[in-house]
């Protein structure tokens, strides 16, 4: 969402908060606020419709240009594909199926790998991040290993995993988990380190045990950091699953893309990309909803709207 729309969002959210010390005083204002709020809402709605129409126009324009370029002979469809044929390939996959079975089956295999990898990576990242974040000794002990682990190009590990764990889903799950782990780990670690000392002290004075401080102070404050990393992390999980499949698999979207490439069928590669993009967008939407639910307590933030549109 653009800056102006965001400003409206912020002001309308701010106006239903009691601004003064006295609760009684704030009841005199609502009438005039109500009318301006309705106006602001209408304006926002109109902007939104206009914005989405413009976006669709841009997409249609680019696709149209591409298709025209192919028809006019400026673009070679052998290398670059063409939108109508990508669409035809997708339709064929959906109605008839792919060379390796139905499209739904490929999607479900890739999704399974990505989701398992994501969950495992997040679990290890959160546990180790919070564990090392709360122990200076462990953090100092392990920091060189983690730095080395983080600096190697982890995609290469996919080759090892494929050989070691075979063409089934295990090697992809592990690759996805490794890719997810580091991002989540560093955020959980930092989030634990940044816990407000006053809050922890307050909890201890109110009678919280060590475990209660961890669960009720460290975890919630680290969660703002962890959730921020989840957006990127699911993307990593998908990359892990698909790269794993490209390196060697008997099912999945990566295999579909790989075998299309082997047949010089660029429309198939692009069709696979479209399916992956749709999955990534849906996952992003789910994570945003989850984030909103978990971080209800946070004041409306300025960056949150970027993904909401």
């Amino acid at each position, binding site marked *: 969402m653009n800056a102006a729309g965001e400003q409206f969002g912020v002001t309308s959210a701010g106006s239903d908060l009691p601004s003064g*010390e006295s609760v009684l005083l704030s009841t005199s204002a609502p009438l005039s606020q109500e009318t301006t709020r309705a106006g602001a809402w209408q304006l926002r709605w109109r902007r939104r419709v206009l914005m989405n129409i413009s976006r669709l126009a841009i997409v249609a324009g680019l696709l149209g240009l591409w298709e025209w370029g192919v028809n006019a002979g400026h673009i070679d469809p052998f290398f670059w594909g063409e939108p109508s044929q990508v669409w035809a390939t997708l339709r064929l996959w959906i109605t008839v199926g792919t060379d390796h079975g139905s499209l739904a089956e490929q999607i479900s295999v890739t999704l399974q790998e990505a989701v398992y990898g994501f969950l495992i990576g997040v679990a290890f990242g959160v546990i180790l991040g919070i564990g090392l974040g709360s122990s200076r000794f462990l953090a100092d002990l392990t920091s060189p290993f983690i730095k080395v682990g983080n600096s190697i190009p982890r995609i290469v590990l996919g080759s090892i995993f494929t050989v070691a764990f075979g063409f089934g889903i295990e090697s992809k799950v592990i690759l996805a988990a490794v890719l997810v782990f580091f991002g989540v780990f560093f955020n959980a670690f930092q989030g634990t380190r940044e816990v*407000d000392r006053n809050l922890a*002290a*307050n*909890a*201890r004075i*109110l*009678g919280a045990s060590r475990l209660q401080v961890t669960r009720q102070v460290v975890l919630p404050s680290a969660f703002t950091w962890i959730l921020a990393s989840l957006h990127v992390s699911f993307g990593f999980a998908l990359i892990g699953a698909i790269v794993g499949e490209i390196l060697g698999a008997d099912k999945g979207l990566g295999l579909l893309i790989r075998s299309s490439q082997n047949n010089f069928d660029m429309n198939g590669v692009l069709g696979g990309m479209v399916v992956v993009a749709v999955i990534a967008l849906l996952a992003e939407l789910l994570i945003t909803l989850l984030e909103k639910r978990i971080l*209800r307590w*946070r004041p409306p933030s300025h960056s949150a709207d970027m993904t909401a549109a």
Partner: protein
Amino acid sequence: MTITTSAKGGPPVPAIELVNASKRFRTPGGGVFTALRDFDLTIAPGEFCAVVGPTGCGKSTTLTLVSGLERASAGSVKVDGKPVAGITPGVGFMFQQDAVFPWKSVLDNVAAGPRFRGQARSKANTAARDWLRRVGLAGFEDRYPHQLSGGMRKRVALAQSLITEPRVLLMDEPFSALDVQTRSIMSDELLGLWEQTRPAVIFVTHDLEEAIALADKVVVLTVGPGTVKEVFPINLPRPRRVQEIRFDADFIAIYEKIWEALRSEVQTAYARSTAAAAS
């Protein structure tokens, strides 16, 4: 919560007792910084004590020693006659910055103390509702702290501390972030609530007016490393109205007396800070 009673017949056990307490911190540069030195202070049960002193004289350090958040480097710190080791039970603490949990609703924030101590949710919530009513926040149970004004958040913090019925309440410039009007309203409410449960209080502030208006005695600290310079009993009658008491002739007289003691310390502290800035 354990309740210790004073030994019958003997002299009453002070609520808080610091004898020759010192606190040294290691600085990042490897040196040693002395925040408190040979600090003596005795506070009777139910007594309201204000601690004033120049910036950086170790006022807040006394509170961390009494609460058990930090341990004294030398000397003894006792609460209810028992040496402090670990977090002192029966102590409430109000911090200078907001220390309410931003991810808990107002009700859950106030109920946090009893819940940490293992009380059932329904019982803790009933008590929390009662305390929210007492601090004038009935109807705000489901709000989150960021939806409240600064003064309201202070009320939440106050209810959060008082719900555990502490026998010792430690306050570290709790109202310093508030505007002047809100501040005197909060001071009045604090006195009203204090009368209800009567904990012993150490109220750290650099505002002498606030100190005199609230306290039974005002302790003036020297410039750091802090130690007690002088103790002034405040015999103004209670109940007091913080907003009006400052026009009282007795108030003005005692203010002048304490200011006399405080002024040289403040000036030394100021001279030090400008010298440090110049070098």
